[in-house]
């Protein structure tokens, strides 16, 4: 039988006013297991804590119950007291007789009776407590950033700045992401490349940052502080260490049919190419789908021109394994394909383009060298219609697009309209909108400038149909303010298409057991208070992977994620919460139910030799990783064989409390 001490606190008159503390202490003496019971004015004071420590020594107590204020207040205090006195800190239970008893009841008799029941319940629970020890796990001081857009770059720079190693894994041949494709950025209209490329160079030159481009993460195991990732570096057929980025091969390559992804496939590129002039790494890549040498074995022109001897057609994919302490997801976004929304005629008309295509058309490095020409006949458009909310804000049952607001379209449409009116004042610009959403510093002022200073025609209403008539696009829509249907003969139609997570996000989410919402955006650990962490420990979120964001917000979140990563990597060891789930291997039937409900991916299955009374065989059993488990207990209730239990809140303990309260 355990020896338990009960300590009833007066809390001045806070408890003693409505609870007869003396009677409680007296009543507890008769409870089986209790060998010592007393009361004191302020148990949390130094004198009170000394009283507890002395009693532990004197009566050789195995556990203590403190009947006092809420455990949320002083549980830790008393655990430390117990630990200092040589008792396991988890052999302490608190009976909450202040917030949940004395403060809510007026009748002293009633309050006293309830306090006794609560103290008895705590004793009943304590009788089943087992000493628990917090474990520790080491932290690998390296961070993996998945995605090399502005979000990934910013996070990597900040983490590296704190002195930790960072690997950026980027699926494309260069880092830079979507921001590299933009022409100008709102609301200041800086040139996007001018502010992004220095950061790219900084990342490349930082000795703590290792850029692994043209690669993807194939597999991740492990847990917070101890991840192990397998990364596939795709064959570039160009030796990264030798290539100087000279571009001499560009005119020699006989294949010219590859679509230029960087220019939204509006022009062609050779089979060997560098995505754009400021690419990092500034190293060529051979497109195996287009390369004549790789397809037929006859050509090899680029190899002949290359003075550095960098071309290697025999290069193979390379698999590398690396260990990390933290992983940042910065997988970014892509615009949706508006073709299924057939009223806009995007698939049929070359002059119906998306906003990102317009960015490339207006960019000096784009397919038209920065002159705004419409794709079909390369003529100057004189009347342009912008359509907002294409594929955003749709009812989920309509299958017409995304249910969310893509957030950035209102601002970039205002930007496009303004830039066009500025550069080509003879051009008429109309914008069909549902609402103009411009919350943000200097954002609404920016939009008003487009209207008031640049004379952009904003029409409240939506477009019902875009149809080609001769060389014009007839745009029919409603003008709700003047209650009219309008028809505009436009030369160019620009769709502000919704954005969606990059297609790679879903598989990465599954790999990391990081939860995602129905739109494939990563969910944060707490929508308000932990916005840059995934509920899975050690996984952090940066940029649009978590939800639609503009550049300033993305950078802010990227730095926030970096701060969280640094906080984790700064630790040598992680102290794990000992109140975690654990499975009884003898009872586990290997059904996988617990694995499915675990929100943290803390449960894995292993084949293990089970030895018990009359049993000696290899079985598939659940194993809980105590470093990952957060102790919610979802698995304990799901387990059909009752093998899973939660330390600190075991079935026995809670049942004992129930019994003590009901009897």
């Amino acid at each position, binding site marked *: 039988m355990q020896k338990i001490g009960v300590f009833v606190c007066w809390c001045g008159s806070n408890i003693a006013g409505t609870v007869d503390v003396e009677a409680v202490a007296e009543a507890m003496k008769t409870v089986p297991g209790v060998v010592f019971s007393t009361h004191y004015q302020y148990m949390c004071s130094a004198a009170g804590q000394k009283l507890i420590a002395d009693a532990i020594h004197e009566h050789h107590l195995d556990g203590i119950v403190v009947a006092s204020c809420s455990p949320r207040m002083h549980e830790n205090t008393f655990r430390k007291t117990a630990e200092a006195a040589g008792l396991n800190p988890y052999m302490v239970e608190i009976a909450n007789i202040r917030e949940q008893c004395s403060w809510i009841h007026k009748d002293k008799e009633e309050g006293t009776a309830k306090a006794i029941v609560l103290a008895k319940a705590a004793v009943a629970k304590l009788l089943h407590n087992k000493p628990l020890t917090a474990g520790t796990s080491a932290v690998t001081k390296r961070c993996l950033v998945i995605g090399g857009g502005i979000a990934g770059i910013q996070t990597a720079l900040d983490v590296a700045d704190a002195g930790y190693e960072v690997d950026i894994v980027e699926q494309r041949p260069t880092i830079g992401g979507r921001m590299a494709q933009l022409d100008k950025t709102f609301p200041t209209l800086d040139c996007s490349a001018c502010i992004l490329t220095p950061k790219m160079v900084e990342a490349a030159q930082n000795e703590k940052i290792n850029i692994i481009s043209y690669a993807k993460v194939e597999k991740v195991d492990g847990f917070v502080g101890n991840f192990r990732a397998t990364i596939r570096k795709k064959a570039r057929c160009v030796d990264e260490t030798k290539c100087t980025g000279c571009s001499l091969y560009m005119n020699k390559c006989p294949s010219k049919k590859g679509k230029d992804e960087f220019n939204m496939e509006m022009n062609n590129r050779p089979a060997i190419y560098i995505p754009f002039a400021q690419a990092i790494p500034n190293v060529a890549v051979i497109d195996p789908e287009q390369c004549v040498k790789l397809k037929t074995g006859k050509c090899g022109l680029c190899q002949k021109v290359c003075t550095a001897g960098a071309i290697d057609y025999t290069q193979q994919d390379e698999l590398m394994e690396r260990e990390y302490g933290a992983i940042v997801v910065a997988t970014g976004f892509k615009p949706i394909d508006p073709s299924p929304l057939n009223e806009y005629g995007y698939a049929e008309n070359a002059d119906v383009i998306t906003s990102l295509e317009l960015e490339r058309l207006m960019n000096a490095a784009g397919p038209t060298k920065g002159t705004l020409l419409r794709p079909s006949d390369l003529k100057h458009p004189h009347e342009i219609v912008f359509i907002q909310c294409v594929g955003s804000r749709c009812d989920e049952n309509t299958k017409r697009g995304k249910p969310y607001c893509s957030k950035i379209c209102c601002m970039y449409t205002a930007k496009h309209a303004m830039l066009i009116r500025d550069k080509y004042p003879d051009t008429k610009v109309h914008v069909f909108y549902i609402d103009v959403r411009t919350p943000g510093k200097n954002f609404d002022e920016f939009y008003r400038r487009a209207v008031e200073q640049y004379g952009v025609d904003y029409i409240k209403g939506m477009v019902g149909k875009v149809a080609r008539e001769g060389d014009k696009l007839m745009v029919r829509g*409603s003008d709700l303010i003047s209650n009219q249907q309008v028809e505009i003969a436009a030369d160019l139609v620009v769709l502000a298409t919704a954005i969606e997570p990059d297609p790679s996000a879903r598989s990465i989410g599954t790999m990391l057991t990081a939860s995602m919402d129905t739109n494939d955006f990563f969910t944060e650990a707490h929508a308000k208070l932990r916005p840059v962490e995934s509920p899975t420990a050690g996984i952090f979120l940066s940029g649009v992977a978590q939800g639609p964001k503009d550049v300033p917000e993305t950078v802010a979140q990227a730095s926030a994620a970096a701060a969280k990563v640094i906080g984790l990597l700064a630790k040598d060891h992680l102290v794990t919460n000992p109140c975690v789930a654990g499975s009884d291997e003898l009872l586990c039937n290997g059904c996988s139910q617990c694995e499915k409900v675990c929100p943290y991916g803390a449960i894995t299955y292993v084949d293990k030799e089970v030895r018990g009374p009359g049993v000696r065989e290899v079985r598939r059993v659940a194993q809980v990783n105590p470093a990952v488990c957060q102790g919610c207990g979802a698995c304990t209730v799901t387990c059909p064989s009752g093998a899973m239990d939660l330390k600190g809140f075991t079935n026995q303990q809670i049942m004992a409390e129930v019994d003590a309260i009901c009897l």
Partner: protein
Amino acid sequence: MENSVKFLTETVLRISGVDPRKCMKCGKCSGTCPNYDAMEYHPHQFVSMVEKGQIEKLMNSDSIYLCLGCMACVERCPRNVAPGKLVGAVAQLKLRQQDMNRKGGNDVAAFADEIVPQQLLMAAMRKYRK
């Protein structure tokens, strides 16, 4: 027949199965309507007027007969509101009140199945009446 705003609104909502509160007032229905200019009240107005209970105004307007039943607004509505069904429902209510709905329930059942849009039934009744 009862003519209270509540009764009329509830009837229109029931016949049409439309929830006008889902509307985000984007005006796509009116932007897409091929017979917009002929109508006194436009598709988007049907949605907001039904929501406000102004059914009688709609019933007394020729707009209910001018809907072509092309279903473009139903097809393209991003919020799944289906304004065209409201036009049909108001027209149906009007016919009922005029006691023109001479086809009995049994006759209608022969036409009605899940894939036949309400508009078609309405148009059919109008045609057969002549």
